[in-house]
């Protein structure tokens, strides 16, 4: 091979690989990311059943049913809407009523219950998921459990 051909082979291979990577990333963005919603948005969102989303809001006070088996149920609310959620497993240490939460999962076809497979309430007493805080603030909801922020 001449010098030019060698260089072409290397550059061509590189460009081919990069193109494949870009296509892969674009495909993954269309398939493998979850959009974030608060309950008030869901009515107009028109999601197809089974679409994976992240649902954020406050855990409605008095809605949490735990201690009766592996599955817990609670409501996520942003005052404009309330969504019942079921989750099988162990809730995070900082999961509380009146506090912010993000649940990841999907609606089962023909049901208004959100089945979560992941529940996040991060490891900080004063933590409110940023997504949740922003949306709630935008809708003028007083945030519970925030008074202990210095």
């Amino acid at each position, binding site marked *: 091979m001449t010098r030019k051909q060698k260089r072409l082979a290397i550059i061509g291979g590189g460009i081919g690989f990069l193109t494949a990577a870009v296509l892969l990333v674009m495909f993954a963005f269309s398939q493998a990311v979850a*959009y974030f919603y608060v309950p008030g948005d869901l009515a107009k969102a028109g999601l197809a059943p089974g679409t994976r989303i992240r649902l954020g809001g406050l855990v409605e006070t008095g809605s949490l049913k735990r201690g009766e088996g592996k599955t817990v149920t609670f409501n996520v609310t942003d005052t404009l809407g309330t969504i019942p959620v079921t989750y099988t497993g162990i809730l995070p240490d900082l999961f509380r009523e009146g506090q912010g939460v993000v649940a990841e999962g999907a609606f089962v076809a023909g049901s208004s219950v959100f089945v979560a497979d992941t529940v996040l309430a991060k490891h*900080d007493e004063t933590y409110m998921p940023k997504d949740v805080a922003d949306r709630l603030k935008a809708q003028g909801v007083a945030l519970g459990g925030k008074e202990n922020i210095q």
Partner: protein
Amino acid sequence: MIIELGHYALVLALATALVQAIVPIAGARRGDRALMELASSAALVCALLVAFSFAVLTFAYVTSDFSVRNVWENSHSLKPLIYKISGVWGNHEGSMLLWLLILVFFSALVALFGRNLPETLKATVLAVQAWIAAAFALFILLTSNPFARLIPAPGEGKDLNPVLQDVGLAIHPPLLYLGYVGFSVCFSFAIAALIEGRIDAAWARWVRPWTLAAWTFLTAGIAMGSYWAYYELGWGGWWFWDPVENASFMPWLAGTALLHSALVMEKREALKIWTVLLAIMTFSLSLLGTFLVRSGVLTSVHAFATDPTRGIFILAILVVFIGGAFSLFALRASRLKSGGLFAPISREGALVLNNLILTTATATVLTGTLYPLVLEALTGEKISVGAPFFNMTFGLLMLPLLCAVPFGPLLAWKRGDFTGVAQRLFVAAAVGLVVAAVYYYVMNGGPVLALLGIALGVFLIVGALTDLVLRSGIGKVAGSIAWKRLSGLPRSAFGTALAHAGLGVTLIGIVAVTAFETETVVEMKPGMTVDAGGYTLRFDGMRQGRGPNYTEETGHFTVSRGGVAVTEIWSSKRLYTARRMPTTEAGIRTFGLSQLYVSLGDPMTDGGIVVRVWWKPLILCIWGGALIMMAGGIVSLSDRRLRVGAPTRAKRPARLALGAAE
């Protein structure tokens, strides 16, 4: 008083750094030796000042001086001593001071051990280091002063976030920073090369030990952080593709690429411009990581800083340094002449492939990490990019690289013989497939992809050893000669073999855990049992306990196999009293390389408790492989050519004067 002295030392360090940033460069321009030599002394003084300042802050933590705001916010008089000390960097201000300390520590090392560097290069490198040090010292003094006082002094502190009260966290940030900041030396060398307009194989040889050291520390830091998340958070996961994890992973990937491209440059004088670019990119990713973690743009356990002025300040540092470095690169890169021809199938070709794949993979991680931020800023839409995205992109892209790794060291420089190498690797591939088949038999089946993954891991390990076997001639020549040849091989050959084998070990761990782990969530009352990984766990009951700054409820489990009790597991939930914060302390037992992992959930109204039990097959391989990679880095660092140092310019003037004369 001592606190003010620490504060003052930091101001002095800033002043020293400013001198070190300007004077030596002027000296290098004018050829004034006295001005250039100032760089070394300034670097040492600066390191001593920052070290003093850091010692003062540590002293304040150890003596629980709550008149210092930072101590009050993050410490508690009842905390065990080790966590008082680790609390120094368990918060924003202290961790930035640690960052600076490590930066000036590396500058001091360059000053002390860079005796055989050309003096203009050394002066310029130290000046560039000082630019970074000055920027960060200013950042600390203006926005994140750890020495701010609180008057009147409170009687008791607010305690460190309990999740951070852990031995893993005591070690994790210093290791990670040693890696992150270690790349600053490579960056400074690259900038100095661009300023001087000259670069050669000796340059690559000087940069290599710093890259290796930084890479080794970063490997340790990431592995440590991953293990910490695994046992401390109680979720049983070891990698979450969390933006903060990605922030440390990206410099690692780019640093790995740099390690390999510097090799090509050192041996063959090729890929010069690319190596300089990679050195800049690697440290830029470290700075980006610092920005992501410290500015609070991400919401995560690591985001201590929520003050926007800090974010903007770090962003400014980021823009100035990265933007400046790339502008300089654009202006001056054409001066660096490239050399060294090679065929696509050759050692160089393999290393180019390594670089291509690693940088592309870094780019996908960067895209996945930043895309949600950009999307939110532009459209207000919020998405979460998690494991599915990264597995699909990063995972697939890395696959060809993993297959290619054993080929690299076996290919000859300049022009390699692919078929010959493939034949030599036949044994390694065969061993991989046999092990996978045995695993299939032992596990009574399993997904084909996972088995191929195991085979690939074994191929990597045996392939790495194949290189050593072939080079020493084991099996072809008499044992004593082979032994002599083996012990005569350069240490870097062993380093390469270890690092590549470690990669294989980690891969096996990842594949085994992903494909074969089992997870069970059950309600248990005392006396009930649950099975996992061939073991039976019996729940014996709960017990109350109390630690220095927490109370805990512990569940006791007896583990048996085939009816015989083998060990026991305690798993607990703690409540840290100062912050009223609960944490899960998972119960973990190791069996060979596999682990049983038990974490507790809610107590039931009828007296039972929810228990989550995982069987994690071969999980220790993940971190064990990282340890082997680190060992590879250390062995390679002890290589003779790095110990002895690069040849001086005087010996080979003709070949080294490559750049256009100034």
